[in-house]
């Protein structure tokens, strides 16, 4: 296997959790809700995903555990911000703080254990094609799932009536409400979808990336996923580009550390975070003409009875 091929495979693997989490958050934000708790939902998803897989011996059950954990976390957020009209920024932070604590609590008994990673696709003939075979036909199921999810979300948002209603709730909740749609119910489902994706993204890490659970193993990926949604201007297609770019930065800095280019390893490790800041600045600057964010993003809605 060539070096280039190995790097591309690693980039795809590193990008997948970002893409999964960002896709979920994109739907949440399109409905008008800013859930900053992605990191918290991811880390709980990672702990529960590993636990489920370790106890059952099945990657699929692990992934399902991660999804359920993410949804449960997101329901706390929905209850607070939709049910009780609490500030979304503060609630999202609380969700992350709670998630970091919970994952440590849940995951402490699994630290030091090991599972076998999710198997990679193998189609005789196709996977054996030199250079592109393993990249196109030799990934783990999550990589394909994440791309299918983006396509599905694009189709849902732009080609279905339900997607149109969801976007309406995110752009002008008063109008959507006046038309007779239950803004809070739409937003609740959007938040739950975001939770499911974040939980799955978290579970991806111990199930398909590294075969063990470490406290804090999400290492800010949830926050980077949030930045990716901004980077993508809330458009699903651009998420793929953004996620793979960030995955590339992550992997290249790891390789650069390996080659020993004489730059402190800490500076290389800081690259994905610095890149996020720079990208946010560049994207926001380019958009001075008008924001592409959902107009009602982050605002509280209390139906007037």
């Amino acid at each position, binding site marked *: 296997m060539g070096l280039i091929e190995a790097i591309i495979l690693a980039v795809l693997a590193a990008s997948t959790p970002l893409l999964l989490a960002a896709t979920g958050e994109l739907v949440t934000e399109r409905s008008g809700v800013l859930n*900053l708790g992605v990191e918290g939902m991811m880390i709980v998803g990672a702990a529960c995903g590993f636990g489920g897989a370790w106890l059952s011996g099945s990657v699929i059950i692990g992934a399902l555990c991660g999804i359920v954990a993410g949804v449960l976390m997101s329901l*706390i957020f929905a209850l*607070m911000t939709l*049910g*009780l*009209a*609490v*500030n979304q*920024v*503060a*609630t999202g*932070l*609380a*969700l992350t*703080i*709670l*998630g*970091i*604590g*919970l994952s*440590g*609590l849940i995951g*402490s008994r699994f630290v030091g254990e090991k599972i076998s990673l999710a198997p990679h696709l193998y189609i005789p003939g196709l996977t054996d094609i030199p250079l592109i075979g393993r990249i196109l036909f030799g990934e783990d199921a999550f990589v394909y799932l994440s791309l299918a999810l983006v396509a599905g979300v694009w189709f849902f948002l732009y080609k279905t009536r339900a997607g149109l209603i969801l976007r309406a709730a995110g752009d002008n909740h008063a109008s959507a409400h006046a038309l*007779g749609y*239950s803004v*809070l119910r739409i937003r609740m489902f959007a938040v739950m979808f975001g939770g499911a994706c974040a939980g799955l993204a978290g579970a991806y890490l111990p199930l398909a990336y590294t075969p063990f659970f470490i*406290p804090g193993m999400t*290492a*800010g990926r949830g*926050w*980077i996923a*949030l*930045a990716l949604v*901004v980077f993508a201007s809330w458009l699903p297609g651009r998420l793929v580009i953004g996620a793979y770019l960030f995955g590339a930065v992550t992997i290249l800095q790891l390789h650069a550390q390996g080659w020993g280019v004489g730059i*402190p390893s*800490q*500076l290389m*490790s*800081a690259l994905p*975070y*610095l890149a*996020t*800041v720079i990208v*946010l*600045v560049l*994207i*926001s*600057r380019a*958009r*001075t003409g008008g*924001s592409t964010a959902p107009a009602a993003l982050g605002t509280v809605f*209390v*139906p007037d*009875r």
Partner: protein
Amino acid sequence: MQLVLEKRAERSNTIALISPLIAIGLTLVTMSILFAILGKNPISALGVYFIDPLTDSYSLQEIAVKATPLVMIAIGLSLCYLANAWNIGAEGQFLVGAVAGSWLAVKTQGTDAGPWVLPAMMLLAAIGGALYALIPAICKVRFGASEILTSLMLVYVADLLLDYLVRGPWRDPKGFNFPTTAEFDPVAAVPALIEGGRLHLGGVIALVVVAAVAVLLGKTIKGFEIRVVGAAPRAARFGGFNSNQLILLTFAISGALAGLAGIIEVAGPVGHLQPGISPGYGFTAIIVAFLGRLNPVGILIAGLFLALTFIGGEQAQIAMKIPLDVTKVFQGILLFYVLACDSLILYRFKLVFASPKVSSGAH
């Protein structure tokens, strides 16, 4: 059955006063359930957490020591949050302050520098923290980049910067390869208040900060502007207040306070620069700020309470083998309840048993 919010005619001042207490009460009930799930006796666990640390002098001093950074950081954050600017990177500003101040301590090590060293370190730390906080603030006002995400990303960068320094250029040559600087000279150390005790000068500085910010918010025009910009942005625009300038100002102040807290922690209780100098003070301070209702005196009380949970958590781990993560869970749950109870100030909760006609469809 459905829970419905009804807007109050005006904010309830009674509830504003007691809502933190309701939140703490609900948190204690939830924690009891969690302890029971973990197979521990809830009553004795709560006792170890919240009563035992109050019964001996060492723990009491330790609470004050832990509350010092929490209160200083939270006071700064409260200014940001009042102005509706979301600085959540105080942890990074804390670390950069610690690094900036430690630079002088490392450079003057072993020289016969005078007692000016410590004040100069504090000044450097405050400037370092403020400059670091200004990065997301400038990105926000100049380019419109979300200060939430940029300030948080810079936490990871600060963590790596500190790690690099103590493993590289600043490592103690006699430190057996441990990633730490040498122990600071006495002139670079924050003096203890009582000989041999844990209490140090930092506690006094924190109290001064509380008083100063209380005056700033209550008695000055700038404080008034900060409160108006957050509470009524439209009114602030009509009043001609410069909200961008206030974002820069509040970020700078909160960064300076976080940085100052950082050097006080390093030159005080820790004594040298090393990784892991903060058990998440910058994040816990967010909870302190909200639990204290973004009010300086409230933050002082909230800071002492959250410090109690750190000490109680350590004691519960030793005495009852309760995992340290329970403290983080506790802090997260507490913040949830605080925010939920705050909703009571503006809204009345109503349980509606028949399905309300409006929320379900056309009307």
